[in-house]
C-alpha cells in the first residue's frame, strides 16, 4: 500500500488545524480582447475581479454561480494554470510563487484538480493505470512502484485494477473515466482537490455514486475540497461552506445551511428560487429574475446585479457594496440592504422567505 495514510499528510500540516489551508486575497484576472489587424487590446473580460476567501483544513468549500461568473477561472488560478493579474495566495502559511514562500510546483504536489470533461482530460493513447501513475513517475517514483500504487488507487475509486487498469479511456464509460480522473488526482497524495464541475456531465444515477465516493475519499484521506458546480442541490449536499459568485465577484459566502435556509443576497435568493420544484403542485408561476447574466466585458456599475435585482435603488448603481472580511468564516453578503448605513431604503430590514 503506497498511499500515505492521513498521519503522513498531517506531517505536512505546518500551521495546525486553526491555520486555513488556503487564503486568497484580492485575486484578479482580466483577459484582454484584441481586435483589429494590429491586435490592440480593445477591452477586457473581467473574469475574476478582486476575490478573497479562505478554505479551512478538512472542509469543502462549494462555489456556485452561472456561466461567466468566474468560478472556473478561480479554479484555474488556484492551480496556477492561469497566472493572476493581482492577488495573493497563501497555502498553509506559505505564499505561493513568491520569495520566502513555496514554488508553484511545490504547491501543485499538494493541490490537484478534476475537470468536467472526463474524456478530454485523459490521454487517449495511454492505458488508464499509466495515466494515474504518470505524475508520481514524473516526480521520481520508480515505474513499477508507481504502477502498483496506481492499481491500489483504482481499487480505492471502485474499479477492479485487473479488469480496468490496462484499458484505454475510450473503453470506459463516463462515470468510470471520472473515477480514473479522481484516482489520478489522488496519486500525489494531495491535501486539497479542486473539483471543477466534476460530476456535471454524469447521468443522475452515476452522479450519486461518484458523490458518495468523493465523500468517502475525503474522510479516509483527510482531504480538503473546493467543489465548483452550477448544481445547487449537489453543492448543498457536499459543502460545509458555500461561496456564490456573480460576474467575477463574490456576492455571498457562508455556512451551507445558512445560505440555503436564509440567503441574504437577492442574487442567491433568485438562484435558489429558480430551482425547479420537483412537485407539480408547486410549479413556479413567475421567474425570480428576468434576462440573462450581463456580459463580463462591461459589467454594470455599482452592484453588478442591480440591472436584474428586484430591490435595486439608485444607490445600487452608484456604489459597489462591500462584502466584508471574507477571510473570516461568518455569513456575509455584498448587498446594500445588508448595510444599515448604505442609504438603501430597505437596509437592515429582513427579506421575505424564499419560497420553494
Amino acid at each position, binding site marked *: 500500500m503506497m498511499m500515505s495514510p492521513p498521519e503522513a499528510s498531517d506531517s505536512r500540516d505546518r500551521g495546525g488545524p486553526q491555520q486555513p489551508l488556503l487564503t486568497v486575497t484580492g485575486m484578479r484576472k482580466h483577459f484582454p480582447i484584441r481586435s483589429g489587424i494590429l491586435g490592440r487590446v480593445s477591452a477586457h473580460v473581467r473574469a475574476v475581479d478582486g476575490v478573497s476567501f479562505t478554505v479551512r483544513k478538512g472542509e469543502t468549500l462549494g462555489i456556485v454561480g*452561472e*456561466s461567466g461568473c468566474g468560478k472556473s477561472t478561480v479554479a484555474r488560478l488556484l492551480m496556477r494554470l492561469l497566472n493572476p493579474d493581482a492577488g495573493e495566495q497563501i497555502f498553509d502559511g506559505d505564499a505561493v510563487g513568491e520569495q520566502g514562500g513555496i514554488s508553484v510546483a511545490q504547491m501543485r504536489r499538494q493541490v490537484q484538480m478534476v475537470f468536467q470533461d472526463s474524456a478530454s482530460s485523459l490521454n487517449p493513447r495511454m492505458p488508464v493505470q499509466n495515466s494515474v501513475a504518470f505524475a508520481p513517475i514524473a516526480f521520481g517514483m520508480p515505474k513499477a512502484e508507481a504502477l502498483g500504487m496506481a492499481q491500489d488507487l483504482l481499487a480505492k475509486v471502485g474499479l477492479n485494477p485487473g479488469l480496468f487498469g490496462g484499458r484505454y479511456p475510450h473503453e470506459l*464509460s*463516463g*462515470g*468510470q473515466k471520472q473515477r480514473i480522473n479522481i484516482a489520478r488526482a489522488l496519486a500525489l497524495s494531495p491535501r486539497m482537490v479542486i473539483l471543477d464541475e466534476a460530476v456535471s456531465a454524469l*447521468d*443522475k*444515477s*452515476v*452522479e*450519486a*455514486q461518484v*458523490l*458518495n465516493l468523493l*465523500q468517502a475519499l475525503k474522510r479516509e484521506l483527510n482531504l480538503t475540497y473546493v467543489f465548483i458546480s*452550477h*448544481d*445547487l*442541490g*449537489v453543492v*448543498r*449536499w*457536499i459543502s460545509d461552506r458555500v461561496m456564490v459568485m456573480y460576474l467575477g465577484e463574490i456576492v455571498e459566502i457562508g455556512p*451551507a445551511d445558512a445560505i*440555503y435556509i436564509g440567503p441574504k443576497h437577492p442574487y442567491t435568493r*433568485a*438562484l435558489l428560487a*429558480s*430551482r*425547479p*420544484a*420537483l*412537485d*407539480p*403542485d408547486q*410549479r*413556479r*408561476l*413567475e*421567474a*425570480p*429574475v*428576468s*434576462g*440573462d*447574466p450581463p456580459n463580463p466585458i462591461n459589467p454594470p456599475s455599482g452592484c453588478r446585479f442591480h440591472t*436584474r435585482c428586484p430591490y435595486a435603488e439608485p444607490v445600487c448603481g452608484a456604489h459597489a457594496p462591500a462584502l466584508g472580511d471574507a477571510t473570516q468564516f461568518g455569513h456575509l453578503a455584498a448587498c446594500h440592504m445588508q448595510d444599515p448605513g448604505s442609504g438603501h431604503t430597505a437596509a437592515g430590514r429582513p427579506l421575505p422567505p424564499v419560497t420553494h
Partner: protein
Amino acid sequence: MTEALVEVTDLSVNFVSREANVCAVNGVSFTMMPGEVMCMLGESGSGKSVTMRALMRLLPARRSVITGGIRIAGQDVQAMDDRSLRRMRGSTVSMIFQEPMTAFDPVVRVGDQIAEVVALHRGVSHKAGRQRALDLFDLVRIPSAQRRLDAYPHELSGGLRQRAMIALALSCEPKLLLADEPTTALDATVQIQVLILLRSLQQEMGMSVIFVTHDLGVAAEIADRVAVMYAGRVVETGPVRDLLRNPLHPYTAGLLASTVHDQPRDRDLETIPGAPPDMRNLPPGCSFAPRCPKVGSDCMVGMPPPVSPVPGRIARCLRVSAPETEFA
C-alpha cells in the same frame, strides 16, 4: 372522442455500421392527445432524442433501420415522400434543440431566417414574413424585438437565442412541438424563464409538446404526463404527479432517490449501482435487471410486458402486478 395526434407503435431504431449494430430504440409505443405535454425522461443513451428524430424523420436514412409505425395527425410519417415531409416539418411538427447556436445559420440575421420559413410555408412575401417574425419575437417576450430581428445569432445571449429558436419553431403554428433538452444548456435563472414561457405558449396555442429531458425537476415543472426511458424502451408512463410521488418501476424509483435535492448531508446518497447497458449488446430480458434491487431469475428471460395497475399508468416490470398493488 378526439383523435390522437401522435401514435407510435413498436418503434425500433437500429444504427448499422460495419463494426456494430446499435439498438438505440427497442419497441417504443405511445399515443398523445392534442394539447398534451409529455416529458420523455431518461439518461444519456436511453433513446429519447433518437425517438424525437425518428418522429421528424431526421435520422440518416442509409445507416438507420427504422421499424414500427409513426402516425402524426393521421399521416404515416414512414411512408411520406420528400415533398410531404417538407410540408410536415415546420407546419405540423417542429423541433427545438439544446444548442440554438447550431440550429441557426450563423451568417444570416435571425429575423430573416424566420421570415424565410414563414414565406416558404405560407407563400407570403419576405416583408410579411419579417412582420410575422416581429410578432413572434413579441410572443416569446424578446425585449427590443425590432432591433433583435437584425441581430446575428452570435450577438444574442443564450436565453435570447433559445427564445428566438422557439419563435422560429412556432412560426407556422405547429400542432406538435418537439423540444429536445431546450433548457439544459441554460443558466438556472434563465432556464426557469424559458420553462415558464414554453408552458404559457403551450396553453395559449393549445399545441402538443414532447419535451425531452434528463432532469426530474424540469419534468415536474412542465409535463402533464411522463414517459421514463431506459435502454431504448419506455419502462414507465403515467401522469406526472403519480409518477413522481409513487413510482412503479424500480428504475424510476432509483432515479428519484438518487437525485440530489436537500438530502441530509451526513448520510450517503442513494444510488443505482452499475451503469446503463451497452446499446450494442443489450442483456436479454429486462435491460434494467443487472442494476435492479428487485431482480429475480424470471427477469432475465424476456422483456417484461407492459402492465397497467392503475388506469393511465403503465410499467414494464414483473414486480408490478396488475390492479391494486400499492408501492410505497
